[in-house]
């Protein structure tokens, strides 16, 4: 949840962090699915944490080597994927009970969902805050500089949650009406 607010100032950042999360999720899901028979149930949580930490280190080093500029902009957030509750939750709920293939698709779906959400946030914030998309000038002016400020991340996440709540309320009302 933390990077959703901190890093989603542009589509590019959202995309890169989404890819990193996707990578970590898919690979740790597969790893856990592979070794699930050898893990003692009492030490399963530390095992998950260490597995995630290993894959985070891998993606961290890869990003630092291939996209140094964007990596610098994301700063500490790539390393903080290690404290992501959703990844651990997914391992606990799905990967430790299913086969490698199933875990792979599950991880891919989760990762893509997260990536999509991050890119949507980045899209709104970059377009409204800077008037650009992926660094290209779209609007030619800056409509609401406020959205480029970090504080706007909170507002936007709150508004998006409210929007989903609203859709749910409307949907339920329709269902009752029918």
């Amino acid at each position, binding site marked *: *949840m*933390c*990077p959703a*607010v*901190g890093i989603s100032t542009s589509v590019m950042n959202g995309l890169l962090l989404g890819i990193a999360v996707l990578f970590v999720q898919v690979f740790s899901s597969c790893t856990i699915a592979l070794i699930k028979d050898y893990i003692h149930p009492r030490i399963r949580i*530390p095992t998950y*944490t*260490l597995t995630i*930490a*290993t894959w*985070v*280190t891998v993606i*961290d*080093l890869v990003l630092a080597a291939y996209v140094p500029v964007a990596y610098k902009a994301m700063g*500490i957030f790539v*390393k*903080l994927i*290690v*404290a992501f*509750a959703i990844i651990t939750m997914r391992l606990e709920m799905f990967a430790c009970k299913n086969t490698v293939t199933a875990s792979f698709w599950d991880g891919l779906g989760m990762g893509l969902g997260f990536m999509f959400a991050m890119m949507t946030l980045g899209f709104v914030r970059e377009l409204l805050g800077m008037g650009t998309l992926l660094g290209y000038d779209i609007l030619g002016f800056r409509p609401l500089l406020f959205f480029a*400020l*970090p*504080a*706007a*991340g*909170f*507002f936007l*996440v*709150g*508004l998006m*949650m*409210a*929007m989903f*709540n*609203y859709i749910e*309320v409307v949907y339920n009302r329709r269902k009752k009406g029918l």
Partner: protein
Amino acid sequence: MDRRHHILVCTFFIWVLLLTGCATEHRFVKKVAFKDKNKVVMTFAGPVDETWAKDVANYSVYEKQDPDILLKITDIALSPDKRTVTLTFEDALNQDQAHILTVTEMMSAGRSQGTAILTVKKLYFGYLFSILIGAMIINNFVFTKYLGLCVFFGTSQKKTTAVGMGITFTIVIVFASMMSWFLYQFVLKPYHLDFLQVVVFIGLVSLSVQAVDTILRKVNPALFKAFGVYLVLVIANCIIIAVPLILADNEYNAWESLMLSLGAGTGFLIALFLMSSVREKLELANVPPTFRGLPIAFVVAGLFALAFLGFSGMSIF
């Protein structure tokens, strides 16, 4: 007896800290310190000769990091009792860096007092304090760095929960980050294992949470009953893994690390307390149904973040 012992040790440490701030390396120079934005003030043990003091060629100043760049002195002022010399520089000095000041052939009452090489730096105690306040308020981890949000929104519904979580978190983070600082400085760095940072730190954090859990259970069961539930949540907080990473990146020493982790912990406590006070009031307010619960909490956090933006760029000392 035991208490007096403690007080003695504390005073000793404070003196050491203060002394590292003002001690100079030459017997004739009593004190040397920054003043304003672009001045350095030297205090001598005796009166110095005016002709010597006013000569720019007798002084050379550079930042400790780059000895090649000599800083230009525009003006030299001598106090009436001839014991204090104030050097004024062309540009503002970067006072976070230590500066080296070389004074050649100091003349006092016609006698030479030799050459002094002096280090000018800010009072260390003040520097530490500024790290503490910086991590606590100016760069508050929740409102300006957006870390630890899961736990922040999860436990800020009631004031009692918020305070409990904040205190537990502060204790664990100081414990965990001091351990990871030690391990990084004395094991990972000497053996060039920097890339293992993430793995080692997360392992250490889990370990220290477990250690605090076990110790608290034995030593103070009452306290454990009050704070035990929050211990599990501490691991899910990314501040606890961010602080060791920041410490490793900035190469902080032991005191600075202690101050930063303490500041991060108390900053989280402050943020939780502020948020829980608002959310308790929100329970009574008439919030539109679509905004009830988390969405309005996010909007409130956004307002707090805007308010905390006002602290940005502030510097103490």
